[in-house]
């Protein structure tokens, strides 16, 4: 049996890695990947706190579907940006700011 603290620690490390990538990288695809890495960490934390019960697994399935939806939406937005400005660097896409 794996102790919950181990799973929590691993989930926290994955979340931290994703957060660092989200804050530091400019490449759009890597930012989307960082968000998915963070959500994988959250999934592990959810598994650790739930203890394998069925309702929590359903919540995990919802979270996983959400992660896939976010990744696909992010990739679609990046594709549109790339067609529009020929760049996927996120700090060059600031049209919403003005």
């Amino acid at each position, binding site marked *: 049996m794996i102790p919950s603290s181990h799973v929590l620690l*691993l989930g926290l490390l994955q979340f931290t890695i994703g957060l660092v990538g989200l804050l530091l990288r400019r*490449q759009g695809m890597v930012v989307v990947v960082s968000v998915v*890495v963070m959500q994988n960490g959250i999934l592990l934390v959810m*598994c650790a706190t739930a203890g394998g019960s069925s309702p929590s697994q359903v919540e995990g399935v919802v979270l996983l579907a959400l992660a896939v939806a976010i990744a696909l939406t992010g990739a679609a937005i990046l594709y549109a940006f790339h067609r529009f400005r020929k760049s996927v660097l996120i700090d060059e896409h600031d049209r919403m700011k003005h």
Partner: protein
Amino acid sequence: MQPILFWVVGAISLMAGLVAVGHARPLRSTQGLVALMAANLILLFLLSTTLLAFEMLLVILGTMVVVWMVLVRPGRMKLGAPGRRRYNITKFLAFFAAIWLCAVIWWALSHPVKPAEKCTEGFCPQVEFGAWMSIFVLSIAAVSTIVVVSIRRRENREEGPE
């Protein structure tokens, strides 16, 4: 046994996460994400959350298909290259690899993995069966992919630049 396996796979997942976040090329970053999710699949089996594990397996397969179709296939495989023979050894190898993978996955699914609710310490055979099975299937998939891609690359080198 389980905590050791957990931390070995956990270390692999962390390294894959570092590659996914830190690599300069987006393709390598996406491949790192696939490796991270594959490691998390094994972790989910170890945690007895089989429903989530199979959902994760579907997500991994979808990600691999998207990465393959959008990023890898046009550049590396040159599937529509002019002058290529219609039937070659790579196509047959890929066909048999796909049949072999389907057979292994079918065999794995025919052995249901039940959550080890009463297993509190020591060896939990049903849980570890799922984890080792996913390692086995992923290893076979990786080896098949490497073999097929390397043979196709060798063919591309022999045919020379277009």
